[in-house]
């Protein structure tokens, strides 16, 4: 996976603060950000929008075979969370195991280390969620 410094840097507003976009033509919120509204295309008007970081679990799994960079976190719960404002995103649910989670559970954003490169490398931060 590409994890260069510029890539990490340019995603900071989205990864740290859950800054997304909204199309004011059709009133649809998007996360991650989009340049074009897929519904309105040329008629769309895209603006930045700050999400509150509250939502519900739409689907989930417990990952036992981790990708590189996540070995020290297994097993961990990964979920698709539907934000109050509408969009869904993929995220980790912290401080819980798979059996402790159900579809529909309420969650709130927390700021955590996502993964680290080798010991000398970059530490990648961003959003995760916890049960509320």
């Amino acid at each position, binding site marked *: 996976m590409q994890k260069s410094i510029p*890539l990490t840097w340019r995603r900071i507003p989205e990864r740290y603060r859950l800054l997304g976009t909204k199309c004011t033509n059709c009133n649809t919120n998007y996360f991650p950000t989009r340049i074009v509204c897929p519904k309105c295309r040329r008629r769309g008007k895209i603006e930045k929008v700050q999400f509150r970081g509250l939502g519900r679990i739409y689907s989930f799994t417990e*990952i036992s075979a981790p990708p590189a960079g996540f070995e020290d976190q297994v097993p961990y719960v990964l979920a*698709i969370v539907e934000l109050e404002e509408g969009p869904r995103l993929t995220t980790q649910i912290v401080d819980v195991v798979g059996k402790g989670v159900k579809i529909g559970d309420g969650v709130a954003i927390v700021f955590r280390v996502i993964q680290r490169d080798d010991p000398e490398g970059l530490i990648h931060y961003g959003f995760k969620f916890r049960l509320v």
Partner: protein
Amino acid sequence: MRRVAIIGTGMTTFGEHWDRGFRDLVIEAGAKAIQDANLQGNEIEAGYVGTMASGRLVGQEHIGALIADYMGLNPIPITRVEGACASGGLALRQGFMAVASGMHDIVVVGGIEKMTDLGVEEVSDILGGAGDQEWELFLGATFPGLYAFMARRHMFEYKTTEEMMASVAVKNHKNGAKNKFAQFQKEISIETVLKSKVIADPLKVFDCSPITDGAAAVVLAPVELAKKYCENPIEIIASGQASDAIALHSRESLSKLRATEVAAKKAFEMAKLSPKNVDFAEVHDCFTIAEIMAVEDLGFFKKGEGGRATLDGKTALDGEIPINTSGGLKACGHPVGATGVKQVVEVTWQLQGRAEGRQVKDAEIGLTHNVGGSGATAVVHIMKRV
């Protein structure tokens, strides 16, 4: 548009080919298909080849030129096509369009992936490129994890069970045991699947397709020329392709693949047929839940009934509609770029009566269904005897 037929087929065995490299595999499949079509080689006007990740798996890009060179086909044009695990199916569609349009008469289509030169962790990372790197994989998702999201929703919405998913693997291993080209030629039980190691709950090792080396190829010609080369050509009567959001979280539903529904609808319209007319199919079972969704999305069973139908044997070799007679991705193996072409080889062999040991009786119409990644690309082809 001209009518298009398959006049030759060939494939390598699927498995771990430590002794053979990328070019060895793709050339073997291509040479077999050209021989099967009784061609000298001079008749071939163009080629399309599907591979997902040759650049990262074996460090080789520019594979169209490599294949033209090593097949002895210079200077004809050969073009690489990429759509993750649907690369092979997309390559076939390009070949189909080239012949249908009248641009070319004889066209070779191949699919190839050489995956075992790297370790499992590296291969998994590379296959992750089929999903959304920045917003799925970077945050800790894996491909089994993405399909686990779909399985969880399917279980939630339709009461699908782990046993139903396991029955897909059991059925496909049973078919694979009858296919000498398959990676796994051994039957397994429901218990084997249910007791295997959990990878991404509820998916276990035996719910997942393996890492595989392999290649497959077909030769296409206009129907009016087909009989000149081949006694029993098989016509491709429809081709449909569709796209959907790259990330699962941006899709409307997780319990179906909309790209499959749309690609199938387009293909059935083009063929002027309905799902009821299909006698058997090769579908994209990269995970067991994927086959359950596929048989629903393609219209063979109602939404939510694919798991029960599989458990009840309706998709077995002697069932209502045999699914994945080759063993599917699960048992025949899944060299990603080769899979879509292998499906077409299997359907052709069934329609020609050449599917030794696993022949579907009175097979008239067959369908292939090839998916890229977690469902952002789907391609469907329908075939029948000329």
